[in-house]
């Protein structure tokens, strides 16, 4: 049997799974899963084939859901997923990342209010990596528009002790000792919302999305509330790469599966301008040279009256060649490209607000 491509979609009302053969020309959709809970992130672990969904329900609190049969049946757990009694309880789980060398058992979860948890038993139970919340900057972390959330998890692909996290609006933090100690890594990224003489603080930036580049573990890209950036030294220093983009504001970023210089973005028209597609025309923007130049990819995307946005975890690539690129909108439409972004088709619409898109090739 040939490979199948799964699109793992989180929405405000459950998780969905779309599947296709590797031609990626026709998709079938199943869902909603997870009892229609609000789901912020759905990820697949290629080592085990398990799919995890992170979310939280106003009635029942935060949980991570899991399926080992590609969505036919699900379990959920939040065992250990809590702070001490004196702290504000966890509201939702926002992000998930299987560890690079976790043998299908280890994964990380980022939660709201911002904190980091780890599971070593495939999501059955969790333990708090409290070093992050012990960082002296924590009392000054400010919530972004979606709350004080840990939404970005980037495990180092080779060194299991290293991990980057992204917190809105505290910025990027890095650990080299498995989560015991952390340092902010925000130098060169702006905080335009601060007074003029405080726009490059050590922490407090509103990072929107953080990704790493294939084959270059120390190359990171981040879409920030205030600009688009690349780092080639593990986040110690960041360089603006927003020249040539229609806006410095946007949420998602997705890197090509093999080329560290190729990145996809969806700039929006601005944080106080409505946060929809610039000129109300849909486009994905692609760089092939690490952010030195950008091209708008529009073929197949609607070019008038487009007032949707794309949320921070709602764009992904697959690992096929040519790479597939996918994004889901706040208005519940899901677009796919099977040719590295050259052309697009709408593969689902009328879904709930799409919070995340990831891929799993099986």
């Amino acid at each position, binding site marked *: 049997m040939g490979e199948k491509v799964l699109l793992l979609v989180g929405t405000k009302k459950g998780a969905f799974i779309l599947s296709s053969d590797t031609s990626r020309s026709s998709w079938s959709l199943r869902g909603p899963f997870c*009892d229609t809970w609000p789901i912020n992130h759905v990820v697949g672990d290629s080592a085990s084939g398990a799919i995890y969904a992170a979310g939280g*329900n*106003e*009635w*029942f*609190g935060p*949980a991570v859901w899991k399926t080992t049969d590609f969505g036919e049946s699900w379990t*959920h*757990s*939040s*065992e250990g*997923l*809590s*702070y*001490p*009694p004196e*702290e504000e*309880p*966890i509201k939702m789980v926002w992000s998930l990342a299987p560890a690079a060398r976790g043998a299908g058992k280890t994964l990380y979860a980022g939660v709201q209010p911002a904190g980091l948890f780890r599971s070593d038993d495939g999501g059955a139970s969790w333990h708090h990596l409290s070093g992050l919340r012990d960082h002296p900057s924590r009392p000054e972390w400010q919530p972004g528009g979606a709350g004080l959330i840990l939404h970005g998890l980037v495990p180092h692909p080779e060194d299991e002790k290293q991990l980057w996290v992204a917190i809105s609006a505290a910025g990027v933090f890095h650990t080299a000792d498995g989560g015991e100690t952390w340092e902010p890594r925000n130098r060169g990224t702006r905080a335009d919302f601060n007074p003029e003489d405080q726009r490059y603080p050590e922490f407090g930036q509103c990072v929107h999305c953080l990704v790493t580049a294939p084959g270059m573990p120390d190359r990171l890209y981040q879409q920030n509330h205030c600009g688009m950036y690349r780092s080639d030294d593990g986040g110690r220093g960041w360089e603006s790469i927003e020249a040539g983009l229609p806006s410095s504001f946007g949420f998602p970023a997705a890197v090509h599966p093999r080329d560290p210089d190729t990145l996809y973005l969806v700039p929006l028209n601005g944080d106080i301008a409505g946060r929809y597609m610039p000129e109300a025309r849909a486009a994905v923007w692609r760089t092939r040279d690490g952010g030195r130049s950008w091209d708008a990819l529009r073929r197949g995307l609607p070019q008038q009256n487009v007032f949707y946005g794309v949320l921070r975890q709602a764009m992904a690539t697959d690992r096929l060649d040519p790479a597939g690129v996918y994004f889901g909108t706040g208005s519940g439409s899901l677009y796919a490209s099977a040719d590295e972004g050259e052309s697009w088709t709408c593969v689902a619409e009328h879904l709930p607000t799409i919070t995340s898109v990831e891929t799993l090739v099986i």
Partner: protein
Amino acid sequence: MIEAAKPAAGHAVVLLPPALVNLFPGAERRVELAASRVDEVITALDARWPGMRDRLCDSRPSIRRHINVFVDGERANLDTAISAGAEVFIITAISGG
């Protein structure tokens, strides 16, 4: 509609909401158990269906904001006393959806 039939001697009857029961395969809407406080009801439910405490209570710990517990018709918290034969109604608040 489930009925709060008279429970066995020394037991309270606990009625659970469908959205909760759906999360735990094999769970039942109507449970009879012995407990002297609401917190002991939650403990007994969690023993039968591991993880149920996390769905009903947060880490303060207290009953979740959008979960309501009534004991014999009165709004309750974790410390509310339960007498033998009491009816404990756990419901999802209309605000939670």
